[in-house]
């Protein structure tokens, strides 16, 4: 709201004045400061979740029990997923949204800056609570990130901590989503129509609607778990007339849109980077918008593909199989458009483009394995095997995570005013890309051969590919130290960046000086600038 934006400036007319020290961060209302905090928080979570993944892969390097006991192993898989999804990918997207949306729509800041502060500061509390479960009797959650009852109800004293943590994460996401929608709907510069917005704003707008629809559903599900545990209800207990399968329906009604929450902003970023480095406008801008909207809509009617094996009527199986396959159509439109954008472009391969191209190939592999999983009789075989693990890691790591890194490399010069070291960036790219494939490709083979997911030990015929996968995991994990080194070095001592470091880049953010001023567009950009910026 306009008067809140101005509130902390009521007493001074020096508009680039920033508060200093701890206060700047604790009471931050500036979209860039909050964006930075989100991104740093996400990075910390990526490293903590990554450390847990390395514990998993160390244990699975060989058959037999080597390092951790099975209960702790199960906590590792569960908390790894919760940290990566709710602490890593989602806050990274919110951080990028905070940084970029005001700059891209011609606004000075987000519409609700104090709410913005609140939604960020909820997160450190939420994850502290979640991590506290490691030190209470009974230990951390270990029943899988999907929290299925009755298993999840067997948790020890950490149970209410975990439920509260999930509530807080949900509240934070909902508030963040409200802020994004309200900003895009009310803060666009005059003349900036919805269909002039860069695709990152579009895909985030759609993501925000998904968040508002499904985070409350997750909150409802965990509330019911809580009352089942403490207040004698039996929503999910057959003994009391409830139904444990109902939890799965509710969870996946949240869960499938959630996976699109994790990937839609990635589609937006890739749709900006590929045209920039192909020096061509994006092929099919409007179809990209409609494809994103169709994907979002369809994501509400496919949830039971996660539970084919619980038993459902044939009509249900057919419906969910076909609706799932339908998602491949708008997804295919997107992949086609990205390829068509590159077609006959004069492409250069700077680090952001390398990550975007890797995204294109590797995300598509994940899409194909998803299609295989959508085939009901095939899923009866693959369900709960490493094939599923391979599928979702392809869409999430070289999918969502690569797109986050592409975005950081792409916009870092605008944020810091400095260029990153291209050689180091490329080194980071190649180590990551090789590492991620060595890590996850063999998991397809393991799954097809029948290795179940979420186990600390396995029979010896799975030994070879597990060893390969673990080697890949360590390559990938340690390569991310390079990422930190590149960003750190750029921010400290990178060469000064020009206003538009990428000659093919369009979008209002590149019309601002470099580094971008503290308040992005204090006066809305004039129509000529909007027209230049919106030339997709």
């Amino acid at each position: 709201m306009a008067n809140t934006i101005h509130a902390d400036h009521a007493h001074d007319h020096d508009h680039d004045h920033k508060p200093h020290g701890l206060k700047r961060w604790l009471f931050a209302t500036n979209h860039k400061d909050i964006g930075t905090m989100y991104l740093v928080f996400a990075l910390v979570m990526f490293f903590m979740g990554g450390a847990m993944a390395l514990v998993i892969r160390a244990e699975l390097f060989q058959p037999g029990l080597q390092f951790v006991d099975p209960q702790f192993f199960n906590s590792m898989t569960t908390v790894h997923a919760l940290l990566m999804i709710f602490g890593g990918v989602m806050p990274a997207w919110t951080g990028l949204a905070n940084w970029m949306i005001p700059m891209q729509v011609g606004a000075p800041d987000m519409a609700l800056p104090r709410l913005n502060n609140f939604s960020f500061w909820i997160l450190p509390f939420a994850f502290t609570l979640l991590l506290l479960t490691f030190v209470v009797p009974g230990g951390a959650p270990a029943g899988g990130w999907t929290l299925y009852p009755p298993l999840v109800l067997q948790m020890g004293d950490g149970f209410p901590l975990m439920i509260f943590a999930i509530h807080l994460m949900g509240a934070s996401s909902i508030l963040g989503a409200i802020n994004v929608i309200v900003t895009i709907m009310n803060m666009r510069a005059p003349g900036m129509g919805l269909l002039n917005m860069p695709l990152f704003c579009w895909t985030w707008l759609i993501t925000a609607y998904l968040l508002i629809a499904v985070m409350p559903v997750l909150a409802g599900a965990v509330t019911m778990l809580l009352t089942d545990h403490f207040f004698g209800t039996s929503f999910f207990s057959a003994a009391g007339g409830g139904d444990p399968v109902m939890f799965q329906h509710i969870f996946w009604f949240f869960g499938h849109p959630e996976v699109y929450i994790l990937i839609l902003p990635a589609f937006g970023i890739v749709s900006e980077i590929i045209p920039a480095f192909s020096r061509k406008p994006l092929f099919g801008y409007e179809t990209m918008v409609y494809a994103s909207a169709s994907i979002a809509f369809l994501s509400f009617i496919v949830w039971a593909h996660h539970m084919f094996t619980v038993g459902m009527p044939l009509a249900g199986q057919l419906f969910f199989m076909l609706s799932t396959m339908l998602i491949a159509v708008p997804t295919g439109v997107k992949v086609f458009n990205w390829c068509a954008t590159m077609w006959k472009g004069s492409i250069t391969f700077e680090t952001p483009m390398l990550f975007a191209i890797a995204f294109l190939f590797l995300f598509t592999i994940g899409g194909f394995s998803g299609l295989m999983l959508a085939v009901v009789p095939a899923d009866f075989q693959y369900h709960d095997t490493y094939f599923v693990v391979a599928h979702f890691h392809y869409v999430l790591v070289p999918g969502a995570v690569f797109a986050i890194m592409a975005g950081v490399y792409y916009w870092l010069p605008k944020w810091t005013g400095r260029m990153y070291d291209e050689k180091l960036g490329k080194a980071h790219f190649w180590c990551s890309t090789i590492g991620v494939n060595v890590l996850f490709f063999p998991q397809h083979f393991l799954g097809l051969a029948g290795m179940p997911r979420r186990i600390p030990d396995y029979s010896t015929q799975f030994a070879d590919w597990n060893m390969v996968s673990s080697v890949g995991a360590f390559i990938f994990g340690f390569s991310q130290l390079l990422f930190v080194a590149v960003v750190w070095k750029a921010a400290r001592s990178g060469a000064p960046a020009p206003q538009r470091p990428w000659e093919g880049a369009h979008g209002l953010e590149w019309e601002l000086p470099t580094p971008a001023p503290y308040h992005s567009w204090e006066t809305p950009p004039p129509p000529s600038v909007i027209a230049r910026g919106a030339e997709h």
Partner: protein
Amino acid sequence: MAERMGSEGTAAGQDDRDRARRVRRNAIVLGLVALAFYVGFILMAVTGVRG
């Protein structure tokens, strides 16, 4: 921004106030939608809609 701050009572000030009102209204509506999904799914479970 300074120019907008000094413009209470002018046409631009009116625009800002209108926008502030719109922003607040949109945020409240979206919050209520979220709340409705939360309560709605719990009610659905209470009333026993299940497969």
